[in-house]
């Protein structure tokens, strides 16, 4: 057991992955001497050298496109996108190449590429530094998408993502980088593509991932004093979704709310609502409701607290669900 921030857990996870497999190569802007703008790669270039921790030219398509070539040559590239809003120059490579090459080649060219993206708001940043683009990737067949919420998952899931033979878009909740928790480095972790009940409850099932798991847990805690028993599930994997535990829960509670920072329209909540409604139709006492960002352009940071779902907005929607 060791106490780690989420950021440091990622750093340790990367180090472990690089020790375990000499084919792991990190690529990104400023990840070398600087250790990344969030220091997630701190010290790694010093210890593993410039061939394995590559400070790239400033071009995201270049990062992903060369990662594809490295993967074809047997490497396992781990690409850092500096901020969520800067992944789009690489979108063509991700959607038309990374996601399709396994199918195109009928398995002859696996694409074990990990794309690390610090995502979400709440850090008072300027434009493009607070986006939640996960639905763009989850909608893309051929990619797998996960989001971590805590240091232990950060440590394990990152290693699992790197070891995964498929491309994994790995979302890191940047505003939780500094959150600390105990991490047991010796357990064997649950499978990467699995969701997890993080708080048991009977009245309503609350789903969250990434930065909103903490918010969801706080909401559940607060609701307890109002006599509401809320079950919280950390989705962890966004594509594929692992809805088994969710359905089991919803069949008991009859009510479900999904929360994410991303704009609500066509966010992950839409897919989850559609699927859960289909599979639990006769158990539902209320429609699956969503708490997300408003469907507006991410606002200047002085307004982000009003834009982002928080404890109160979650409870507000929980109340609506309970009121059906």
């Amino acid at each position, binding site marked *: 057991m060791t106490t780690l921030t989420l950021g440091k857990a990622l750093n340790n996870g990367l180090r472990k992955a690089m020790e375990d497999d000499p084919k792991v190569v990190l690529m990104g802007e400023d990840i*070398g001497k600087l250790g990344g*703008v969030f220091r997630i790669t701190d010290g790694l270039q010093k210890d593993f050298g410039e061939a394995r921790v590559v400070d790239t*030219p400033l071009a995201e398509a270049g990062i992903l496109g060369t990662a594809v070539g490295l993967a074809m040559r047997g490497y396992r590239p781990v690409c850092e996108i500096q901020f969520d809003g800067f992944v789009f120059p690489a979108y063509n490579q991700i959607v038309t190449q990374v996601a399709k090459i396994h199918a195109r080649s009928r398995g002859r060219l696996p694409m074990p590429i990990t794309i690390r993206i610090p995502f979400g708001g709440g850090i008072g940043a*300027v434009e493009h530094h607070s986006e939640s683009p996960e639905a763009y990737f989850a909608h893309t067949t051929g990619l797998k998408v996960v989001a971590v919420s805590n240091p232990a998952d950060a440590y394990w899931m990152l290693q699992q993502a790197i070891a995964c033979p498929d491309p994994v878009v790995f979302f890191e909740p940047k505003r939780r980088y500094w959150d600390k928790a105990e991490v047991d480095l010796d357990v064997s972790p649950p499978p990467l593509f699995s969701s997890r009940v993080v708080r048991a409850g009977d009245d309503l099932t609350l789903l969250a991932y990434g930065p909103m798991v903490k918010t969801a847990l706080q909401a559940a805690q607060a609701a307890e004093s109002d006599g509401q028993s809320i079950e919280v599930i950390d989705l962890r994997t966004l594509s594929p979704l692992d809805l088994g535990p969710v359905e089991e829960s919803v069949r008991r509670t009859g009510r479900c709310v999904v929360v994410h920072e991303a704009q609500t329209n066509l966010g992950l909540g839409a897919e989850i609502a559609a699927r859960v409604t289909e599979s639990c139709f006769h158990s539902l006492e209320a429609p699956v409701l969503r708490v997300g960002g*408003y469907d507006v352009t991410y606002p*200047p940071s002085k307004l982000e607290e009003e834009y982002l779902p928080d404890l109160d907005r979650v409870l507000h929607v929980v109340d609506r669900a309970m009121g059906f």
Partner: protein
Amino acid sequence: MTAVPDVREMVDPVPGAGAPHLPAQPDLVQLLTPEGERVEHPDYALEIGDDELRALYRDLALVRRWDVEATALQRQGELGIWASLLGQEAAQIGAGRALGADDMAFPTYREHGVAWARGVDPLHVISLFRGNDLGGWDPVQLGFNLYTVVIGAQCLHATGYAMGIQRDGADAAALAFLGDGATSQGEVNEALIWASTFDAPVVFFCQNNQYAISVPIERQSKVPLFQRAAGFGFPGVRVDGNDVLAVLAVTRAALARAREGSGPTFIEAFTYRMGAHTTSDDPTRYRLAGELEEWKLRDPIARVKAYLSRSGKADAAFFDAVDAEGDELAVRIRKGTLEMPDPAGTEMFDHVYAEQTEEIAAQRADFLSYHAGFEGAEQ
């Protein structure tokens, strides 16, 4: 071996992290040496009066003062972040003052000096870094686009705008700003192609400040950046970016060339980012102190001051007056920042579209009634 020449041997090296001395650069256009000596360049004559010279000094000094104040405000928690222009004042004032009224500038996030030259109120830039808005000025009226944070994206905008100028038959040009790091973005190279193909009246003004955050220029290009342009079919020129006169002359010439229909130019202003990338950055992690000391000897303001003093074009009273004006400016910026009202929450719903959608109108109404609920609860 004429067919496969080793180009790298033919060009002067680019200095990088830790390089203590600038190499001799035969291609560098300079009109004012670091020591403040006025020199001539065969291609770039500059007729400039004493008033204009003093005005340039004033610009340089005031934008630096603004920058210092903004950095302080950030340290005190009043701004979310600040991207300092320290060391790049001459590049920005030179370029900004070369613009005509009908020209349009397309900045990155660091062109406070150009903003100043275009008449943007510093508080309208500050409000962005404070998180109140995404840029408070009127880009159309001022001929100065909003800051563009996504590296390089504005180069295509400038080129398209220039294509519009062509269609309008207007006597104007677009000036796209970009950094050395930005030259690696595909979109920037596409802008060079478009500009060339359509002979667009656009000038690409690249401030090579030697770094993209922590990454030194060698990682983006092994040859001087200005040489990039020739392969796209138009001229490139490297100018001493710490020499406001040279920058002014070179940019004026390029804009004139663009306006008269002779197509684009790529300007590499060779300069140095004397501060951190932004207030969030820690440059000690990736560069040696000696490098900064070396560049301090080429300070863009000191050389103008030396020239003005030595040539008797300005006296102590003038410099004192500028200092005093700087202090006033700083006070105004500080006061304006502290008094800046927070934006209303409804703001975020009001400008997503020119024609509001029912969906967003409904969310706006929900937002209002949700918050009204709290107010009710608090009473």
